[in-house]
């Protein structure tokens, strides 16, 4: 019974985490719990079976879909590199997936600079993945600057979570 409930909660949590970026496909829904289907017609990602190492759910939870950055920095920490090495491995194994790497910043900065900083961070991740053998044609980058924080308090405990690059995977062509 416990394992069943845990499984349900895990699936529920992963269902929510698949929809944290309603803007990624352009005219996305504003409802964070709904599926993400934008005007490009790209459907929300099927998370796959629980525990399947080839599934996007596994990529998000077990491999880790995000890396964090120091204030004003876009350099990859050792922890970040380890996570990204795992991401590269997964992407090489599951070659029908593409990725959009989102760069983000915390709110301690002006708007335009933070968009540029997010771009730097996303690109740092992209270059590392390429250095690990992932073809560049499968990787795109976007920056959200400080527009999409995941944590909303105004101190370092939240800022640290917001200074991130998230690798969002999907099957299909980016056009």
């Amino acid at each position, binding site marked *: 019974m416990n394992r069943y409930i845990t499984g349900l909660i895990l699936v529920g949590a992963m269902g929510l985490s698949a929809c944290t970026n*309603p*803007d*990624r*496909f*352009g*005219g*996305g829904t*504003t409802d*964070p719990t709904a599926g993400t289907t*934008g005007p*490009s017609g790209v459907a929300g990602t099927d998370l796959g079976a629980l525990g399947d190492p080839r599934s996007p759910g596994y990529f998000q939870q077990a491999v880790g879909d995000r890396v964090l950055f120091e204030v004003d920095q*876009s350099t990859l920490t050792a922890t970040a590199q380890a996570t990204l090495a795992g991401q590269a491995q997964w992407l090489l194994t599951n070659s029908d997936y593409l990725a959009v790497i989102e760069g983000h910043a915390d*709110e*301690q*900065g*002006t*708007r*335009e*600079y933070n*968009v*540029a*900083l997010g*771009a*730097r961070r*996303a*690109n*740092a991740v*992209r*270059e590392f993945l390429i250095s690990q053998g992932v073809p560049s044609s499968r990787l*795109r*980058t*976007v*920056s*959200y*600057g400080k*527009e*999409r*924080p*995941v*944590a*909303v*308090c*105004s101190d370092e405990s939240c800022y640290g979570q917001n200074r991130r690059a998230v690798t969002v995977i999907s099957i299909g062509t980016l056009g």
Partner: protein
Amino acid sequence: MIKRFWAIYLLALMAGAAAVVAPVASLAQEPLRIEITNGVIEPLPFAAPIFEAETAGSEQLARDITALVAQDLTSTGLFREIPAASFISGVSSFAQPVAYADWRAINSQALITGAVSVNGSQLVVKFRLYDVFSGAELGGGLQFAGTVEGWRRMGHKVADAVYSRITGEAGYFDSRVVFVAESGPKDNRLKRLAIMDYDGSNVQYLTDSATIVLAPRFSPTGDRVLYTSYESGFPRINVLDVASVGRQQLTTEAGEMAFSPRFSRDGRQVVYSLANGGNTDLYITDLATGVHTRLTSAPSIETAPSFSPDGTQIVFESDRSGSQQLYIMPVTGGEPRRISFGEGRYGSPVWSPRGDQIAFTKQNAGRFHIGVMRTDGSEERLLSASFLDESPTWAPNGRVLMFTRETQGATGGPSLYSVDISGRNLQAVPVQGFASDASWGPLQP
């Protein structure tokens, strides 16, 4: 209070001197004038008796327009309205001669009279401005005609005329501001473009909130707005026509992300940031020819560009020195010259329409400030301080700045504030809901 003024007045008369009433000593000898300086200023007292309603049924409109004129002037911090309860005599007819003594007695240095008439949907507003202590009109009477619907604009035009005659500067009240209206929780903020009168009235939406929109920027004539849109899934620059609300994506140099656009002063070019391979540089696109020119080629971030009024230079921010600083470079290219040297980081520079100053955001020791400096970086002055102030925009006469102030925490959000270039008169712009990224448009014709 009034008795004392009378006593001084009579005394001065008997002494054969011109009428003198503190605090402005020689007002009667010199034209009615406020010199806007950085020093402490005593607001100039004025009276605006309710404009005459020349047609039946226009009394409320006359009251509203008079109140709007008084509100515009008072909001500058340079004028102080004398309440009607203090009036010795009123002004019952726009055409009647002014009883100057009655206005001098209550120390009203300026007197504004007016009249309003409505004919169907047509509205006519007339006004006269009097220099009370000189006992004469200041400038000629003026008449504005328009629709009843546009009554606020006419009130603003009256206030602009009074303001410019007394300060010697152009006014800024008949202007609009484009901004981003925000709503929702901090981790899922909805943003949409909006436009309003400078005083927060007449808010209209220009886009829906389906995707992120950032930092709208008016064209010099106010007919178009540039902004950054995520509707394609990536930051791209759109041009929106204000009258039709139609929009299209700007064709920029090819790149992964385009953002931070501004028009040149002749409205024919757009300068912007383009991110490629993680690096952000400045480009210019000519709207007529479609030619793209790269302005910077550095591994650092170059963004937030702003043209000089004469169109020959651009100020922008760059972290090429290791931290965000302000630089100026010729539009034709060449080595940028750094102009910011204080402690902290500098961003979002905006060139004043007067050409003499740069407004900017400064970040230092965990605080944000709006500031101004001369174009060589000298005379840096900070005009505000808070948890997060950013993105200044200049009033069309270069005397006032509007900016975004964001409060902290999970329930925090942005509002628009304005401050005089001297640092005085900081006040919130009364807009409902969260608002950010204001761009102040020109004085309307």
